[in-house]
């Protein structure tokens, strides 16, 4: 081993710095690693997508500031996907015209499933950062698809395990309101199953069209039904509208839900919120890395990151770390590397890895409680974290769908 003196070390460092500054053209001319980013920026999920995009860009900029990956610069090419039809077209465009190496993103389950098929045909790795349908991890799982976002069962079991301990499920009479598309149907299947398996009564379910502006009729109907709990399987602006109007009518029945996204809850405002929910991540989380991420994101964008932002940020970091570890940008190599159980820091104080048989990221989720308004620091401070699910010593599998619940016939590479 040769010893390098302090002087030589400094010289080399200065030389490297000058090199980077002096010849940016060379760096650019090198083959960049292109990441195709798909997410709705318009439509009823557009608000969530806006946060996702900010976070994806932050992750890429941070990686480039560190010198890129494998000595190559990372380039993010982002597209707006307001519906599944556009999502497919944009995915194809990213692969064929922009020649991206990987795909990442999406929030709508319907769009995500469609993108997954395009990725599979092109044999390109696709990291899902925001859609929840169990179907994508089960019946329609595939080799090139990996899920950073939690699935519907994870959300359901996280709040369900807590509710069960509180004695809210056994003998409880619940009524469901469900978004009428892939995500909602899947979530209703999972959440109603959990209810009946744990001794509760399902009073009924309304399939609600997305983009509804008025829920008064549903709320009046609930008044007549008088359930013990109203279980909400809605997403995006639908969640906001419902929460506001539910409060407007002063409905007395407790509210819980299959999925909680912070942005629609912020838009509803703390006054319209009640009860206990579940979250994949919350910006007030104190685990190592989280406060720093919140700080960097807030400084750049003037507002804290939501759960979607966390998903895209961590998703990009996982992707880039895998490229560095596998020393390859070939999707096949990365799939193999991820399936071998590569470990990742996802800002939750516990390492995460992908389950080999369905590619779901095994990770912690959180039960959260709506904060007392007097204690809220600002308009974004709406939750207190009640507990982690599973707890630190427990197996990740406790909130996961079992093989029997969600069989995945994983096809060959």
């Amino acid at each position: 081993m040769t010893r390098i003196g302090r002087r030589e070390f400094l010289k080399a460092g200065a030389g490297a710095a000058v090199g980077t500054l002096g010849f940016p053209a060379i760096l650019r001319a090198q083959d960049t690693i292109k990441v195709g980013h798909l997410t709705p920026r318009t439509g009823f999920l557009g608000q969530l997508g806006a946060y996702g995009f900010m976070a994806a860009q932050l992750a890429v900029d941070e990686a480039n500031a560190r010198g890129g990956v494998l000595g190559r610069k990372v380039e993010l090419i982002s597209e707006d996907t307001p519906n599944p039809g556009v999502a497919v077209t944009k995915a194809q465009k990213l692969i064929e015209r922009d020649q991206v190496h990987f795909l990442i993103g999406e929030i709508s389950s319907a769009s995500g499933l469609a993108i997954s098929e395009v990725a599979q045909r092109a044999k390109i790795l696709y990291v899902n950062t925001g859609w929840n349908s169990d179907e994508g991890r089960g019946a329609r799982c595939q080799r090139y698809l990996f899920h950073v976002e939690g699935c519907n069962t994870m959300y359901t079991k996280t709040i369900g395990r807590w509710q069960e301990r509180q004695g809210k499920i056994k003998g409880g009479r619940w009524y469901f309101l469900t978004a009428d598309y892939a995500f909602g149907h899947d979530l209703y299947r999972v959440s109603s199953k959990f209810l009946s398996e744990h001794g509760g009564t399902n009073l009924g379910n309304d399939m609600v069209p997305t983009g509804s502006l008025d829920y008064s009729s549903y709320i009046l109907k609930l008044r007549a039904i008088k359930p013990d709990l109203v279980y909400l399987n809605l997403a995006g602006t639908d969640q906001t509208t419902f929460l506001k109007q539910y409060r407007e009518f002063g409905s007395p029945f407790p509210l819980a839900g299959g999925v909680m996204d912070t942005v629609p809850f912020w838009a509803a405002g703390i006054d319209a919120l009640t009860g206990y929910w579940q979250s994949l991540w919350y910006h007030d989380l104190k685990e190592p890395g989280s406060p720093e991420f919140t700080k960097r994101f807030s400084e750049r964008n003037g507002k804290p990151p939501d759960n979607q932002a966390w998903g895209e940020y961590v998703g990009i970091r996982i992707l880039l770390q895998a490229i560095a570890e596998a020393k390859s940008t070939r999707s096949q190599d990365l799939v193999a590397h991820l399936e071998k159980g590569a470990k990742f820091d996802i800002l939750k104080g516990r390492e995460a890895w992908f389950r080999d048989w369905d590619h779901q990221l095994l990770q912690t989720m959180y039960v959260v409680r709506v904060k007392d308004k007097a204690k809220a620091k600002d308009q974004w401070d709406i939750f207190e974290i009640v507990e982690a699910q599973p707890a630190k010593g427990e197996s990740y599998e406790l909130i996961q769908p079992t093989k029997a619940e969600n069989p995945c016939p994983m096809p060959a590479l």
Partner: protein
Amino acid sequence: MPPLTLPILIEHVANGLLVGAYFVTLALGLSLIFGLGGVINLAHGAFYALGAYLAFEVQRQAGFGPALILSPLLVALLGMGIESLFLRRLYRGDPLLGLLFTFGLAMVGEQAIRIAWGTTGLPFQIPEGLRGFVALGEFIYSRYRLFAIAVTALAILGVWLALEKTPYGMIVRAGTRDPEMVRALGISLRPVLTAVFGCGVALAGLAGVLSAPLAGVHPAMGTEIGTAAFVVVVIGGLGSFWGPVLAGLLVGVIRSLMVLFWPPAAEASMYALMALILLLRPRGLLGERWEQFE
């Protein structure tokens, strides 16, 4: 499904009428603009969204009351500016030009809102004094919604009075039937067209303000509502004042009853109604025969 009793049925019909009132405000403005200028204003939804956003700003400074008056006025001023700068050049040309222009305007409007206020929704709470409920025996209803219906009714009444009882309204009515004759009488329709456009978009703005505390404020809100407004106008019939009013209320009631009986079809019900009306009575429920379109 809850046990179907008469009170529940009445409750849903009443709620439907209240929800419908809000469709009426939107559709009436659209119908007015179309009636006189022959312009299908695809940017109607954008004016609606703008009304909500301006109300958000005014409310922050001065409260909800001023917002309710000021915001539609600002929308009207902007609308009149756009009308006299751009839209008026297109009246005589191909109707397609007006369509393209307002379509572009809608996109520009939504993007401008995104740039000015950001992409995420803004929390817009129900004003302090209007929270809570009114109990009428068995029925409990939101105080704010009752207030909104009163404002809507006043606005509709105001437009009706202006059209029917003022000399200016007479020119508007004459202008919608026979613009050539009005011109031959030496009356210029230009200022009338500008005023009607302003009035129409002010109604859209008002609907935006009223719905903001209920549905929240976000950039795509105009796109969502625009289509509904067209459907109501088509059902009601072009060129009639009471057509959009009747159609708006009808759409509200049918939607509310569908929620009670078969929720998945709640949103689709108004399109089904439109298809049915177009098949049986193409000019709409109260539409008059319109020579220039037949």
